[in-house]
């Protein structure tokens, strides 16, 4: 059994490209060419060199001594928060901007939730001198204001998405509509392992540098490339996909996917797709999503803009559906408490999304000799207002 994508663009029964004909030529072109482009020597050279000298990779794998002592186990943090722009998102945007250049696209669009993908996209567009338009839900524009300011400073146009729940799902809808309206000159840089094939695989490949580094870093530090467990938060699932990638078929390594429960999975205000979702189609992909019996997509809720999405990528749908990955749901409050805990015990302020992964430590079983890697997907600068408000309420 393999958990990798098959030649038709599916992970098990999940994936595919359920898109209107207007998107077909662009998506089909990508499907036919993405692997050749990415694997080409010149591409790899440029990609690797930018990851090293511009992003600052490899990101450290840090043994969190005090956190480990407290949980009586061995916890390593994969420091994606130390990347340029502050999250894993830039691994993907570097790859995709190089791809966009090679296929001759002159205009970049992106969706963003927390604004980290928007910032990472605006950054690579500034780097390459390419026009950049970022769609962002109206609610997210308010709750992630520092990232909106960064995108504007970087020269991107931030367009509010005003439909539906005014969050990530709706920003994605608007980006897709933009692409339908501007098919010739535009490349759509999707920010997670979602959307029609080949996007989930393409984004996972660019993010796979995370687990690639983990392998040799663990070898150096513990003598084996394999941890016992990898924990990552899942919005669409790109940081998790990157952290799992080289371990997907190594079933000795437990994979833990942490979703946002919002106010609680039973409250109607949640984004815990693996608990509340059923099989269906969202943003061109057959996957798990939150929907009514009539197939209407349900508006999700999470305090964390990057996890406030009613679906998960098809890779994760397959991993969870098949039992390969365990899903854990974490409430807003548990995530906030975990963010403060990590900050006070290790001196690292995580992004709200990432804080969900840390809260999972209280929900899962592990042993004293286990080596656990938590993917520290991003830093919390963008969430300071939320954190301080919480602190003042305590």
């Amino acid at each position, binding site marked *: 059994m393999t958990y990798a994508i098959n030649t038709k663009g599916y992970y098990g029964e999940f994936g595919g490209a*359920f898109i209107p004909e*207007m998107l077909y030529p662009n998506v089909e072109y990508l499907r036919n060419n993405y692997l050749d482009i990415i694997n080409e020597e010149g591409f790899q050279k440029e990609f690797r060199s930018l990851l090293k000298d511009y992003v600052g990779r490899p990101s450290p794998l840090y043994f969190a001594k005090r956190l480990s002592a407290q949980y009586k186990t061995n916890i390593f943090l994969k420091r994606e928060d130390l990347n340029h722009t502050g999250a894993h998102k830039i691994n993907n945007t570097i790859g995709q901007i190089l791809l966009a250049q090679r296929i001759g696209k002159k205009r970049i669009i992106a969706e963003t939730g927390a604004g980290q993908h928007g910032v990472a996209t605006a950054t690579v567009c500034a780097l390459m001198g390419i026009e950049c338009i970022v769609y962002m839900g109206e609610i997210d524009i308010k709750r992630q204001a520092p990232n909106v300011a960064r995108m504007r400073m970087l020269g991107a146009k931030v367009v509010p998405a005003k439909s539906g729940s005014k969050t990530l799902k709706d920003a994605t809808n608007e980006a897709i509509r933009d692409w339908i*309206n501007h098919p010739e000159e535009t490349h759509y840089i999707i920010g997670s392992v979602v959307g029609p094939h080949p996007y989930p695989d393409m984004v996972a490949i660019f993010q796979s540098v995370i687990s690639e580094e983990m392998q040799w870093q663990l070898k150096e530090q513990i003598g084996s490339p394999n941890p016992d467990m990898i924990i990552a938060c899942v919005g669409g699932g790109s940081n998790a996909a990157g952290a799992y990638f080289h371990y997907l078929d190594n079933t000795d390594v437990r994979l833990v996917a942490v979703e946002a429960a919002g106010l609680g999975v039973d409250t109607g205000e949640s984004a815990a797709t693996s608990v509340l979702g059923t099989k269906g*189609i969202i943003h061109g992909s057959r996957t798990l999503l939150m*929907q009514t019996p009539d*197939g209407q997509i349900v508006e999700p809720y999470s305090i964390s803009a990057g996890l406030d999405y009613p679906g998960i990528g098809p890779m994760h749908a397959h991993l969870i559906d098949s039992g390969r990955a365990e899903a854990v749901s974490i409430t807003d409050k548990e995530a906030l408490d975990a963010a403060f805990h990590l900050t006070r015990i290790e001196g690292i302020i995580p992004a709200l999304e990432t804080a969900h992964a840390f809260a999972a430590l209280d929900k899962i079983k592990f042993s004293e000799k286990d080596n656990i890697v938590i993917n520290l997907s991003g830093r919390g600068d963008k969430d300071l207002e939320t954190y301080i408000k919480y602190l003042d309420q305590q």
Partner: protein
Amino acid sequence: MNRLDRLFQQKQKDILNIYFTAGYPNLEDTEPIILQLEKSGADLIEIGMPYSDPLADGPTIQESGQVALKNGMTLDILFRQISDVRKKSDIPLVLMGYFNQVMQYGEARFFDKCAEVGIDGLILPDLPMDVYEQDYQRMISDPDNNRDLRISFLITPQTSEERIRKTDELSTGFVYMVSRAAITGAKSDIEQQQIDYFNRVNDMKLQSPRLIGFGISSHDTFSTACQYANGAIIGSAFIKALAKGEIKDTVDEFVNMILGNVPTN
């Protein structure tokens, strides 16, 4: 006989296909809209199943869908309404929606229900042709199950010749020619570039009837589109008109405006 087949046998030119979102402006407007469209001279009606996340649709159809869902529209209600209106009308009816709606209803159950209530065809823009061929082609037209549905696939100015041929082969209703690279409701005149595309497709001598849609909103754009295809499809412009007043008069006025007639109602 399937009513779409009958229509295309009887009429090859100036076919007027009107789209509306079921449940808009009010939940029970489906029947009066269909009856008046037929009376006023529409040839074919496309009923939109309102959807929460219609990727290919512009603001007008998005908003009509939101209103319809707020009004409580569901597929079961819509099927009941269509079954009722079928007792009074014999106009060809096509259901248009997103594939997730069909999946959740259950594909076989959905096709059965369509056949039972008197739906003639389907338009599912995000159902890929290869998935259709593999999983659904045999299901939608299946005499053993009393199903005799037609399906229409879309082409755009960017669709390759090879793929247009494939669309023609698989479409059993008509080929839906999207007039430009755009979501629905982008209002504008028909430009030379589009006419070149219409001519290019014309020269391919497809076997299926062709209807042009997206951005058709006036007598002029309708007439122009009809010069290059068997007819045209109007959606957003009709939905905008519906917001204005009482159904009967509004629908009659709109259809006559498009056909260039003096109102008859």
